[in-house]
């Protein structure tokens, strides 16, 4: 699971400390100024400079003076209800049928022998629901107003005391409502599908001569080993991401074993993340190494040196860790020589106080290159100012909730790679059902944004064109990060024009574009810059759907942070306001009978 550090920020950090509120305000002002300028130019061409300015100013005046304050909830509800009924009677609920057929087939094809079937099942239902709902929102929203205009049913609406704000809001609310109903049904079906699909039971297949060690039978393409305690109770080993309880009871002199339902495959772990810094081979703060991967997500530390990855935690509360500090890590190994390929690379973990005066003994571990868990006991051995001492975790190592965890690589010439989200403290667990619900709230927010865009485009474009425009926004939103990479010239070969020239002149991307004419080269770069700036600006105006997707949290069993969800809610609200205002503007200035 990939998490950028900015995704850990709390809502207030995101809004105030990281300047999102200021950025949002700047974006609103820029968009408003840009919108006013474009509209004024159009109005000026049609009506002349004075009259054009007057008409634009009047629309803005009407918005704030009358149309917004006098917007009626009753009329919005009437139009929303109409949109809802329209969708129902046009058999939108057939989407549910499509989904049911989809998950019925998925039941056959989803591989239960995968390492983590829960992840597979949850990812499947969330991704399928996400795409289906976004497409539903797209088709519902893009065609409705244009159909009303084409069929002229809009005549009977706008000749009633209905304001453009009410038409836009009514549509958005109505389609969101029908989308919510469909999403709720899909969510319920998905939950049942996941829970039932992953549920399985084992019997004890073999039991050792001591009557305490045993193996279960194979169910769902796996079996478990287990060891019972003296009281006849025990837990199996972890396989396919879960365990089972095993109990042995005497019935009529015979021992009967009972294996419980799976535990831990549907979880919502509450992680505490820290910020990550690196030190180089000499222990001096640096940026971590790049071992040649294109992705910069993980940075590496060199083995057999002072090179370290240091996580600084700020919210380590004793109440969250009553039984010890549970650490979850997913560290990657990069080998410069093969060596003993069966034996994993070795790493070391150290806990340190924030003032760096107290640290724990080194905890050696083998890098699993998948999710690994370590529990640090509350009382442990360590060093205070390099002198050995018995330590208490929350008394000596945690100061005001702050603490450091250091990872080093033991094997020289091997490397360990990590990102900030690759090591977290597990501060308890929340309900999977609730986390699943939050995942669907996240999908709902994306759906509302798509509906907002669809309705906005449909106020000035015909149905098919509005659909294409909404789809383009969606694609731009999903692949926005790539556009930024292009724009920041992180890829070789230049922009679109330069790429075409390179293809025609058969020049590779790694050599200079030498056309023998510097003016021509500069012109090509300038055109590319303009094109890429335009696309990048467009990209900034559409939501980053890639970031709004939270299905990984649910699939990897991590509690979706309330702060992140609240942030997404605010982003959706921002787009809702922006698209409503733009839609209002177009409806207000549009001749319905033209």
């Amino acid at each position, binding site marked *: 699971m990939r998490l950028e550090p900015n995704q850990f920020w709390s809502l207030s950090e995101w809004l105030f400390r990281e300047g999102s509120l200021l950025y949002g305000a700047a974006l609103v002002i820029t968009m408003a100024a840009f919108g006013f300028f474009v509209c004024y130019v159009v109005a000026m*061409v*049609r009506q002349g400079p004075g009259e054009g300015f007057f008409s634009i100013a009047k629309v803005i005046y009407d918005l704030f003076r*009358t*149309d917004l304050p006098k917007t*009626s909830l*009753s*009329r919005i*509800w*009437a139009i929303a*209800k*109409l949109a809802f*009924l*329209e969708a129902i*009677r*046009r058999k939108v609920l057939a989407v549910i049928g499509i989904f049911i057929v989809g998950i019925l087939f998925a039941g056959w094809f989803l591989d239960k022998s995968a390492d983590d079937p829960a992840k597979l099942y949850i990812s499947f239902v969330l991704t399928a629901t996400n795409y289906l709902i976004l497409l539903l929102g797209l088709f519902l929203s893009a065609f409705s107003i244009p159909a009303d205009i084409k*069929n*002229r*049913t*809009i*005549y*009977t*609406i*706008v*000749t*009633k*005391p*209905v*304001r453009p704000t009410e038409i836009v809001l009514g549509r958005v609310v109505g389609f969101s409502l029908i989308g919510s109903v469909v999403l709720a049904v899909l969510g319920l079906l998905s939950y049942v599908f996941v829970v039932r699909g992953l549920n399985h039971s084992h019997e004890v297949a073999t039991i050792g001569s001591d009557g305490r060690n045993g193996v279960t039978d194979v169910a769902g393409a796996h079996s478990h080993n287990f060891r019972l305690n003296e009281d006849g109770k025990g837990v199996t080993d972890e396989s396919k991401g879960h365990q089972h309880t095993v109990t042995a009871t005497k019935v009529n002199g015979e021992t009967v074993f009972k294996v419980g339902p799976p535990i831990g495959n549907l979880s919502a772990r509450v992680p505490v993340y820290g910020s990550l810094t690196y030190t180089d081979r000499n222990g001096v703060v640096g940026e971590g190494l790049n071992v040649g991967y294109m992705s910069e997500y993980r940075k590496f530390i060199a083995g057999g040196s002072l090179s370290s990855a240091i996580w600084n935690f700020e919210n380590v509360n004793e109440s969250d860790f009553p039984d010890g500090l549970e650490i979850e890590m997913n560290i990657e190994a990069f080998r410069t020589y093969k060596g003993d390929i069966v034996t994993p690379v070795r790493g070391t973990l150290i806990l340190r106080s924030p003032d760096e005066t107290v640290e724990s003994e080194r905890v050696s571990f083998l890098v699993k290159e998948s999710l690994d868990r370590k529990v640090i006991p509350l009382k442990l051995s360590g060093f205070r100012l390099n002198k050995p001492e018995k330590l208490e975790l929350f008394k000596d190592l945690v100061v005001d909730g702050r603490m450091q965890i250091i990872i080093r690589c033991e094997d020289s010439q091997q490397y360990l790679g990590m990102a900030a989200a690759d090591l977290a403290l597990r501060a308890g667990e929340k309900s999977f059902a609730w986390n699943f619900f939050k995942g669907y709230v996240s999908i709902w927010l994306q759906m509302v944004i798509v509906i907002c865009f669809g309705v906005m485009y449909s106020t000035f474009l015909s149905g098919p064109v509005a659909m294409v425009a909404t789809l383009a926004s969606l694609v731009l939103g999903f692949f926005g990060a790539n556009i930024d990479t292009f724009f920041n010239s992180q890829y070789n070969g230049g922009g679109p024009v330069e790429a075409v020239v390179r293809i025609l002149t058969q020049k590779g991307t790694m050599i200079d574009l030498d056309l023998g004419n510097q003016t021509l080269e500069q012109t090509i770069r300038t055109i590319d810059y303009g094109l890429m700036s335009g696309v990048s600006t467009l990209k900034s105006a559409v939501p980053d759907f890639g970031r709004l997707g939270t299905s990984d949290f649910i699939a990897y069993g991590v509690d979706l942070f309330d702060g992140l969800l609240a942030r997404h809610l605010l982003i959706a609200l921002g787009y809702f306001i922006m698209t409503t205002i733009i839609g209002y503007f177009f409806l207000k200035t549009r*001749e*319905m*009978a*033209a």
Partner: protein
Amino acid sequence: MTLEVPLTDANPAALKETSNAVLSNNSDSSTAPASSSDVVIETRGLGKIYRDFWGRKKVHALKSLDIEVRKGEIFGLLGPNGSGKSTTIKLVLGLLFPTSGRAFVFGKEAAEVTKNERIGYLPEESYLYKFLNAEETLDFYGRLFDMPASVRRERTEQLIQMVGLQRARRRQLKEYSKGMTRRIGLAQALINEPDLLVLDEPTTGLDPIGSREMKDLILRLRDQGKTILMCSHQLADVEDVCDRIAILHQGELKELGRVDSLLKVQDVTEVHATGLSDAAKDEIRAVIAKHGGTLLQLDNPTTTMEDLFLDIVRESEARPGRRSGS
């Protein structure tokens, strides 16, 4: 029996010219000037040019129209296709924006939303949501006027009764005949008990009975004090119901005035009488000749096709299975 006598000139061409002159003289000025509070619709130099995507002029649909529609009258817009009738109505309703001039409704700009609170509009083809039934349709439009639920229910019941759709109230509009669609269209136009009713081709698609009922209803609404602006191709309909008309051609106002004044032929006298013998008719001819008049026609009048049809239908309903007149 109808008798028509020109008092001065028997030449039909001259007669037409004369009557045209009378029509022109009988224009709007023939009626008493209205106070500003009586004016429901006012257009001042209203013009509309339709342009293409690039802003090039396509059609000059309306040229500097000046009319006033007064409270409590039925005002008809008459003209051939493309004369600017529908454009005028759309400009008055704010569905189009004028290229020049201004339109006011109840003293407010036509684009002003609040004016719609007092307007009912029946479009040319009752553009309604086909997936709704009659009750849902009226409830929906009632909600758009912020009407409380109890009032909506009451009005819906009244209007469904009024337009005779009791038995089809729960059927979706897509199952309605054209006549039924017109009737529910009219009902939605009346949901808010409007002071001004704008009717675009109100009798289009209606059979003669429906057409007559529509005209009777229009007259009843006028008698209740409502103002009605309508446009129609059906000259007979306009003649039957309108108090004043404006005749448009190629976007220009050609005539404006009271229907009775405009249609009155000043120099022809019409007498309707019953029970006259042939001798009496001869005597009348003699009297006309004696006074220097020219007898144009002395004949038994014919009824209109509409009246004939309605009489037959009424008789058929009263005595089913019998052929009319037998």
